């Protein structure tokens, strides 16, 4: 039996005043997918952040449920392990009333040699409305959009981008400091292998912040300067100028040859500790996308200090992912919603 049309199924849920606010995706949002922040405009990013703020408010800080995506099915297609992001997407989808299916590469047909495109097409044929994809290879979510008829959200593609992580970092800064315009944000650590760094870089600069990339030359290429961002290899020099520091994890798993002689030496040069904190602005905001290596990028006392927004980031992740899901597969003016079509019609 085909699934009931969205509107019909929606009636099974009580419509609240806040649901009416999310009845239709604004027409200014023209994208079908959320793949990267590089190709979004400042207006697109602001719309995402504003939508996330509205969801956060309407759900009492991401705690209660809405029915904005009732009747939709979201699949978490994770080719690379993840706990935090996968859980965050699943909760965000459920907060909007959507059903969530998890698909992990381990133990699937992928280990039997099936291509990722075939895997995704099979899931699509089962009638899902959005695919949240994480993959170790840059561009894989982009390739999926050429083969699938449903919305694709990039939940991290290798070292390329992690748009919802970038958005939640920016959301957290905006919530704390009001605006991004004129702020100086230091991204510190493994820039070379960090998708978070790339999404932050594009999002922050589009919204008017100044970005400084900081770390050893083996992890922070001079070439970034060609994009108009500042590159520094000396954290202590840039520290007093930063309003925000985003401390990025060293991705030991992605290195061919070690980019620095020892963890001890790295921590000595770049770890954010109490000593460095004293030299920073008193209103410095500290972010870390997690999982954090305590004692490498940041010492435990700083990670847990009042200036650290690490746990706010996690909550805000839900709000941002609700916004991403809804803008990607929410109902649009003049269009039948994906789930109101008979099953298999798109396959």
């Amino acid at each position, binding site marked *: 039996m085909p699934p009931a049309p969205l509107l019909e199924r929606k009636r099974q849920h009580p419509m609240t005043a806040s649901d009416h606010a999310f009845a239709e995706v604004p027409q200014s949002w023209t994208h079908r997918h959320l793949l990267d922040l590089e190709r979004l405009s400042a207006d697109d990013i602001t719309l995402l952040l504003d939508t996330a703020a509205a969801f956060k408010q309407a759900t009492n800080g991401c705690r209660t449920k809405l029915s904005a995506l009732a009747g939709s099915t979201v699949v978490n297609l994770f080719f690379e392990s993840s706990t935090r992001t996968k859980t965050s997407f699943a909760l965000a989808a459920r907060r909007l009333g959507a059903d969530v299916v998890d698909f992990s590469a381990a133990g699937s047909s992928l280990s039997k040699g099936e291509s*990722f495109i075939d895997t995704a097409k099979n899931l699509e044929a089962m009638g899902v409305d959005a695919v949240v994809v994480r993959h170790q290879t840059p561009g894989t979510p982009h390739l999926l959009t050429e083969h699938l008829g449903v919305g694709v959200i990039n939940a991290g593609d290798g070292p390329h981008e992690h748009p919802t992580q970038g958005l939640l970092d920016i959301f957290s800064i905006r919530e704390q400091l009001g605006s991004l315009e004129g702020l100086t944000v230091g991204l510190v650590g493994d820039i070379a292998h960090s*998708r978070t760094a790339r999404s932050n870089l594009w999002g922050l600069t589009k919204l008017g912040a100044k970005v400084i990339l900081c770390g050893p030359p083996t992890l922070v290429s001079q070439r970034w300067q060609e994009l108009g961002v500042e590159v520094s290899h000396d954290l202590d020099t840039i520290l007093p100028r930063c309003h925000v520091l985003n401390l990025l994890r060293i991705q030991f798993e992605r290195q*061919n040859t070690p980019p620095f002689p020892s963890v001890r030496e790295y921590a000595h040069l770049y770890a954010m500790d109490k000593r460095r904190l004293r030299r920073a602005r008193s209103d410095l905001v500290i972010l870390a996308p997690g999982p954090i290596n305590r004692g490498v990028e940041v010492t435990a006392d700083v990670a847990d200090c009042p200036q650290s927004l690490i746990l706010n980031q996690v909550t805000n992740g839900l709000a941002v992912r609700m916004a991403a899901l809804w803008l990607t597969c929410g109902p649009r003016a003049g269009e039948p919603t994906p789930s109101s079509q008979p099953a298999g019609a798109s396959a």
Partner: protein
Amino acid sequence: MPSLLIRGGRIVDPSQSLDATGDVLIRDGRVVAIGAAAVSESDAAGADEVIDAEGMIITPGLVDMHVHLREPGREEDETIETGAAAAIAGGFTSVACIPNTEPPIDTQGAVEFIHQKAARADACNVFVVACVSRDRAGKELAEIGQLVEAGAVAFTDDGSPVYDAELMRRAFEYCRMFDKPILAHEEVLELSHGGVMHEGLVSLALGLPGMPAAAEEVMIGRDIALAEVTGGRLHVMHLSTAGGVALVRRAKAQGIAVTAEATPHHFTLTDECLRQFDSNYKMSPPLRTAADVEAILDGLVDGTIDCIATDHAPHAIEKKMLELDRAPFGILGLETAVGLSITRLIVPGRLDWPRLVDAMSTLPSRILGIDRGTLAVGAVGDVTIIDPNLTWEVDASTFRSKSVNSPFHGWQLTGRAVATIVGGRVKFRLHEAAAAS
């Protein structure tokens, strides 16, 4: 054997400094008359077959000295038969096939196998390039003398560099005895390890592992030094970087026996293409920057880069429809090379016709030491007839190749081979092919 008369075209044959309107008469597989008024009316009347070439360019048959035919071992990608069919459809009368097959071409028997398969395919000439090292393993020399006896025209471990510098030195020394060139794939593997594209601003933004220009240039530098010290003949394959062009230019100025080739994709596309994450843009060496493309074009103009070769590298569609890091390196070349060369080199006025024909026929023949690349009287009757003004759209679904991994699908090109004549026999005519399909 019947005779064939090609009438009234612009004959461009740099081997005899000929660029004039005229006729070519081929009898018994050999050129018997060429030039303006070279063919008497009685000869003309007696020809078994006549091709009207008015408005066309007549060239010595084109030679692609860098083609992967995949057979034996990877017949799902290409076979000698399908590759040879693609060659004549692209205007090539001769190809040199690269030995990174499975097993690699490192024995007389393997060379013989290629020759037999090519004879059976009966399309273009297939010249065999054999391995430098036994089993292409880079440990010890293959039986180069035996391979020469079997007909190998050059040696390469392409797909990989000859990594051991001493083995490379020995290969240069040993090949001197037979006056055979070593075709070198130039890459320092530690520097390009895991890379899928050129290392630069684009790879930085995309988070894709890069293959730095230095990985190619360091190895070119090594091989130039070894060619100099041994007096051996180095041919640099698929030159792709500005620094590499400069190294070759300097070596030539010093009189070192070095030649070089460039591919149509390296003088046409840049690393910006990778923003589409399409594995059809993934090849080794990778697409470089716009500045590198300019340097390649300059190298072709001033002769630093002797010739154009395609590095035709077919891969079955299911292998290319993978994530960028899992998809293999390689791009088709045979059926788009003439169109791309004319569109990119002749139309904008970068090269004139004699230089292009030199780069696609005469010089590759000279480097390989094969009796092709000329329409002198007595030469083998290999001829390509090109319509220089024909505009056409590349359609990968019509390729004769077994694979479709071309990023040029859908491109509008100017110039195309309309007839390919091998040993005096017409092997391909575009209009017949179009009518048949």
